[in-house]
């Protein structure tokens, strides 16, 4: 256990203490205690920047299940550090914000901070784990804590619905990720990511490579809300706003991005990876930005915008994979895509976090998040407005904010795609920049909606629940810090380039980045195509924003019932309905049906096995000769048994059954088993008497008229089938006798060893006495059971006695 392990473990430990702090210090907001930890962790992690800058990595090991090769290996490199800083940094800001957002009196703060700390620890574990099983454990922990946080206001129906939906989708992805991990470990014989990377060349040719790739991607796409698994994210907006800001914009949804980036060195050579990641990203980008425009809820817009931006990052990661095919290229233009992805990852966390906090402030101060009710808040909330402008303009990609830079780099990468000549990109490549450009136009439009709809226009006081006013200063600190970062990173992007971005890119593309590689983000890079594209975005965006009410109708072209949400809801309903109808069909509650299935299965499985293995064999060589009286006795048994079926009264059936039993005892006599014959006689008599007893106590109902058994064809067929199968098996078993019986041992030793002449009895009480003991216990249990059933009547009427 190193300090790094304690750092990841510390949120879990604090989560244990939080409820006690909450109970003990009722006067102080619990968030203040919690705030200390992420700040400490942030300073702890920022110390590593100087290390990773030089390309060094930190590895720490703690053993967990060494026999299975599962160790809690933590591995801190550029990518891990970037995420750890995001998690702890934004975590601190979010906790600070939540202190002012959540009321000390009304809210269950102990639960909130426990869930949040669980999430923070789990997320740190995800990004620092080198062992895939450990990564998966933390991965599921994030799903679980996200579920708890979304359902935080669990008295609301929408919260529960959103929590359930997100859990179902992310756990579905998590399980397929586990499948991918297991396939990877089968291929590489290790769970360690670094070892898998070192043998990535050999893994490519393995037949399990593509299934593993697809399963891992499924896990990443569900977590990162990629199309078509994005539907859980808008419903997760029922969570408290700090949670939305933290989980659903800055950290958890980037776990999938992290996974794709982390496993890029393993998979990225493959064309499947390139296509899946970049196409899924582009579609998500387009669909997210397109859907965001029609939302009327501020958080809904931000949710779809998160989806779209995640798609942007994902598509850049996919394009970055193309760089691997050009390692001889002097100036590798496709590597720029990876740089852009990492840069936008940071930018998105800053501006989206601040925008969510702004949305929270508006909600908190006006009582609504509906943009149709909001308007004219600019004069009332000037600071919030400033933060919103910075965040939204950065999201739209306007200078001088950081979003401008990453959007430029994104467009540049998309234009570079046109020069690709692998994977049929000559024909399809043109799709990339076009989709990206259209999506950027929509991004511009919804960014304008986010900032202009609530803050400009007319103030509609009668629609608002509260009288709006500026938020308390504590609530504003976090968004102001984030907005400052947006500007700082926008004006001085090279603060990040060599310290954080380069080590992170080096972890994603370890074979391409060497010491010569320099990340340089220039604000002004000449009149390049991407600049013209940005200008086009702004111009078209402004025109479309102004005319929005006129083309709003296109959103009605896609009716609600064809949406993915409807598909999910109907799918879930159909699944439940079909499962319950299958249950109703199979589980009728009638024993007759169950017996039918059991016997049918018996016939089919055994019959098929006999046929398939060609097992039936008839060898008449070891048959004993059949005597006349044996035939007569057999005839008696057969006639008796058949007549039982056709007997009209039950009493006749009982008598016939007794006759059959006595004849069986006669068979025992004929086949020289005196003990069996004796026992059989006595038992038969007793059971006939018992049958009579049962018969006597049958209620005399009109419906229980004594009738001959009704004939059913399928019952007859099945009973004949069972009889045939058993006969066939008995005949083949007899014909296939492979060994001599061991009975000669008993015959020789019964008197010598055990001192008894009756071999059957010696076997029962001496050679195999244990069986007899338990037969005795069976009989005693039966006797006690009968006694209890007769005497004990807890529910019944008062007994006469």
């Amino acid at each position, binding site marked *: 256990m190193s300090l790094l392990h304690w750092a990841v473990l510390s949120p879990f430990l604090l989560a244990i203490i939080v409820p006690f702090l909450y109970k003990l210090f009722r006067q102080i907001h619990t968030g203040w205690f919690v705030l200390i930890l992420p700040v400490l962790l942030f300073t702890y992690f920022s110390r590593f920047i100087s290390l990773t800058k030089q390309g060094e990595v930190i590895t720490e090991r703690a053993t967990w299940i060494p026999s299975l090769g599962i160790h809690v290996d933590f591995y801190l490199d550029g990518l891990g550090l970037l995420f750890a800083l995001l998690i702890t940094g934004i975590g601190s800001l979010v906790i600070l914000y939540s202190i002012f957002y959540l009321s000390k009196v009304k809210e269950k703060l102990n639960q909130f901070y426990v869930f949040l700390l669980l999430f923070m620890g789990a997320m740190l574990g995800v990004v620092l784990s080198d062992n895939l099983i450990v990564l998966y454990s933390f991965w599921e922990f994030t799903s679980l804590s996200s579920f708890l946080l979304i359902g935080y206001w669990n008295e609301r129906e929408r919260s529960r619905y959103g929590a359930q939906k997100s859990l179902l989708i992310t756990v579905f992805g998590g399980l397929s990720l586990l499948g991918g991990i297991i396939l990877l470990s089968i291929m590489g014989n290790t769970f360690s990511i670094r070892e898998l990377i070192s043998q990535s060349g050999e893994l490519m040719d393995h037949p399990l490579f593509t299934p593993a790739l697809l399963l891992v991607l499924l896990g990443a796409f569900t977590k990162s809300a990629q199309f078509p698994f994005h539907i859980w994210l808008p419903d997760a907006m029922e969570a408290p706003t700090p949670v939305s800001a933290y989980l659903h914009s800055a950290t958890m949804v980037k776990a999938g991005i992290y996974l794709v980036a982390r496993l890029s060195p393993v998979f990225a050579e493959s064309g499947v990876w390139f296509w899946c990641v970049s196409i899924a990203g582009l579609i998500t980008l387009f669909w997210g930005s397109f859907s965001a425009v029609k939302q009327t809820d501020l958080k809904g817009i931000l949710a779809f915008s998160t989806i779209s931006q995640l798609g942007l990052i994902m598509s850049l990661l996919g394009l970055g994979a193309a760089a691997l095919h050009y390692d001889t290229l002097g100036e590798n233009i496709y590597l720029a895509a990876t740089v852009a992805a990492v840069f936008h990852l940071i930018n998105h966390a800053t501006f989206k976090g601040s925008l969510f906090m702004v949305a929270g402030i508006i909600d908190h101060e006006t009582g609504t998040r509906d943009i149709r009710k909001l308007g004219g808040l600019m004069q009332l909330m000037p600071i919030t407005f400033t933060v919103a402008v910075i965040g939204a303009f950065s999201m739209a990609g306007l200078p001088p904010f950081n979003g401008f830079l990453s959007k430029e780099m994104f467009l540049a990468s998309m234009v570079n795609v046109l020069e690709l000549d692998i994977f049929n990109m000559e024909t399809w490549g043109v799709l990339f920049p076009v989709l990206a450009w259209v999506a950027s136009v929509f991004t511009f439009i919804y960014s304008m909606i986010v900032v202009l709809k609530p803050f400009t226009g007319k103030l509609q006081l009668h629609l608002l629940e509260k009288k709006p006013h500026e938020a308390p200063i504590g609530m504003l600190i976090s968004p102001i810090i984030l907005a400052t970062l947006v500007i700082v990173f926008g004006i001085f992007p090279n603060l990040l380039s060599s310290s954080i971005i380069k080590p992170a890119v080096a972890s994603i593309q370890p074979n391409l980045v060497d010491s010569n590689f320099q990340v340089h983000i220039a604000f002004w890079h000449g009149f390049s195509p991407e600049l013209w594209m940005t200008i086009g975005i702004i111009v078209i965006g402004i025109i479309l924003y102004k005319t929005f009410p006129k083309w709003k109708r296109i959103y009605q072209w896609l009716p609600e019932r064809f949406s993915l949400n409807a598909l999910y809801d109907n799918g879930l309903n159909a699944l439940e309905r079909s499962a319950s109808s299958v249950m109703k069909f199979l589980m009728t509650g009638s024993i007759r049906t169950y017996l039918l299935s059991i016997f049918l299965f018996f016939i089919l499985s055994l019959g098929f096995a006999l046929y398939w293995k060609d097992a039936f064999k008839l060898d008449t060589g070891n048959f004993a000769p059949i005597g*006349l*009286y044996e035939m*007569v*006795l057999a*005839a*008696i048994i057969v*006639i*008796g048994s058949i*007549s039982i079926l056709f*007997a009209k*009264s039950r*009493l*006749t059936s009982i*008598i*016939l059954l*007794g*006759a059959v039993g*006595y*004849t069986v*005892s*006669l068979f025992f*006599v*004929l086949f*020289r088993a*005196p003990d069996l*014959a*004796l026992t059989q*006689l*006595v038992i038969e*008599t007793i059971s*006939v*008497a018992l049958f*009579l*007893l049962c018969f*006597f106590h049958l209620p005399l109902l009109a419906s229980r008229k004594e009738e001959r058994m009704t004939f059913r064809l399928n019952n007859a067929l099945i009973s004949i089938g069972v009889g045939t199968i058993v006969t066939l098996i008995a005949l083949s078993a007899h014909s296939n006798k492979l060994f001599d019986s061991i009975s000669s041992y008993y015959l020789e030793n019964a008197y010598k060893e055990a001192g008894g002449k009756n071999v059957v009895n010696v076997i029962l009480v001496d050679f195999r006495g244990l069986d007899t003991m338990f037969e005795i216990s069976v009989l005693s249990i039966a006797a006690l059971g009968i006694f209890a059933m007769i005497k004990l009547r807890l529910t019944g009427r008062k007994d006469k*006695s």
Partner: protein
Amino acid sequence: MFDLLLKIALLGVSLSMIGFLYRLIKGPSVPDRVVALDAMGINLIAIVALASIVMDTSAYLEAILLLGILSFIGTVAFAKFLEKGEIIENDRDR
């Protein structure tokens, strides 16, 4: 010769069993069947005795005694059941 006689006797008894079985199945009333069952029990005694002579063993003599007792008890039980509707009477019911 003796062996053949024994086999003939066994066959005869077995055939008479079939006759009783016919009565047992067909028997218009329950007492008919009970009597048939009782006779079958005695027939069984005969078969067991004959079989033990054929097999030249005395291991089945207990079975003969037991059969005698049981067929008696069984017939009495049936008779009582037919008469009173119950085999073991409960004293308190009286």
